[in-house]
């Protein structure tokens, strides 16, 4: 079942300039794997060499950080939205 993943502005160039991508998955981890399979350029922005989610990239299922749910194993279904929230520093 398709789950919507919202892509933040800084990462859109690596996701075919799209603001959201639909993926099929049972869990958040699976959704992210499918996302980077569709858009390989995203991989290095989301995951470190050892395959771990980078610590300046947060992933939310609806309004909750998956670090405080079941992380990658957090179940997701089609009514859910996954949001990728990278840190941005701009201000001037």
């Amino acid at each position, binding site marked *: 079942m398709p789950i919507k993943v919202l892509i933040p502005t800084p990462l859109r160039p*690596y996701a075919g300039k799209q603001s959201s991508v639909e993926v099929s998955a049972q869990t958040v981890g699976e959704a992210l794997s499918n996302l980077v399979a569709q858009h390989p350029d995203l991989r290095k922005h989301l995951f470190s060499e050892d395959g771990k989610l980078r610590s300046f990239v947060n992933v939310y299922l609806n309004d909750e950080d998956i670090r405080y749910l079941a992380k990658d194993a957090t179940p997701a279904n089609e009514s859910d939205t996954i*949001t990728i*929230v990278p*840190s*941005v*520093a*701009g201000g*001037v």
Partner: protein
Amino acid sequence: MATLNEDTTATLSNEEILRYSRHLIMPEVATEGQLKLKAARVLCIGAGGLGSPLALYLAAAGVGTLGLVDFDVVDYTNLQRQVLHYTSDVGRPKLDSAIDKLNAINPFVQIERFDTLLNSQNALEIFKGFDIIADGTDNFATRYLVNDACVLSGKPNVYASIFRFEGQASIFATEEGPCYRCLYPEPPPPGLVPSCAEGGVLGVLPGLLGVIQATEVIKLILGAGDSLIGRLLLVDALAMRFRELRVRKNPDCPVCGTKTQTELIDYNQFCGIRGEEAAAEPSAKIPEIQPAELKRRLDAGEDIFVLDVREPHEYQICNLHGTLIPLGDLPKRVHELDSSREIVVHCKMGGRSAKAVEFLRQSGFKRASNLTGGILGWADKVDPSLPKY
């Protein structure tokens, strides 16, 4: 707020009563709230995009003491969004320009200026004199420094950051709430996340986010409403959508959770030299060519292929008649290039083209080099008639 300095003996003059009358007649502020604003001491870090609306509104609202930290000078590229500064201010220190405007808006506000780059040596000392810190800086090192100094000194950090047409806002480092490190434990490696100077920013966006910061500062002072503590507000100005996400206090946070970090650290090191990333950063090995040298060789009729890896909208502003392949498209269009020819790659300032040269050399283009300083370097050294952006 226990940290706020509530000087209940302060009074409002007749002039102040007239000036603040629209506050005084609303029950959420009233005279009591206006006196809290008058007694409040707010430090704005940065007098740029976010700092402009922030300081303007805080001054107008009657915040008694505003501290401003900035060491920069106004330039033309600031004027599209930094509304504290006017065309006639180009070349002046931002603090001189800012203080003129803030005094003109509200002469009752005391302004304390700090013409300095905030660093680990001065931050705690500067923060001492203020109740609330508003972070309007533009780099990760200062973001982490402000956060840690706020946690260590027990002062709320009213936060916003922006990129292109998207912004984030929250309040960090209150006693009960999370800090910036709870949200983002570590900074990205240098170069992975573009800055506003590289990526651009919609001029009104810092206006939106800076006004949200000002609103949160004023609510903290008044003790009114629901603050952004524990909530991250995401603003997408293009879609005009506001969303909010929950931010939890991380019990393992070294600064506000386990409190294992008890003093400020070297934030340039924290944000710059980062193990694997630093080792993977090959900038030193990338061959470069100076603008004057390229000019001389092109004029001599040498066969050099100039590759421009910027975006089409940048090419439109100015170009060196090179072949345009944006950095993001290079991997799938690399077959269009001839590896036997000498290739000079350029972008705006040299960052993206360095990545392109690294990629090309790994792909067998042994004669690829990077134009030092990009097209801006060319404009400075070779052709001053080119527009700079």
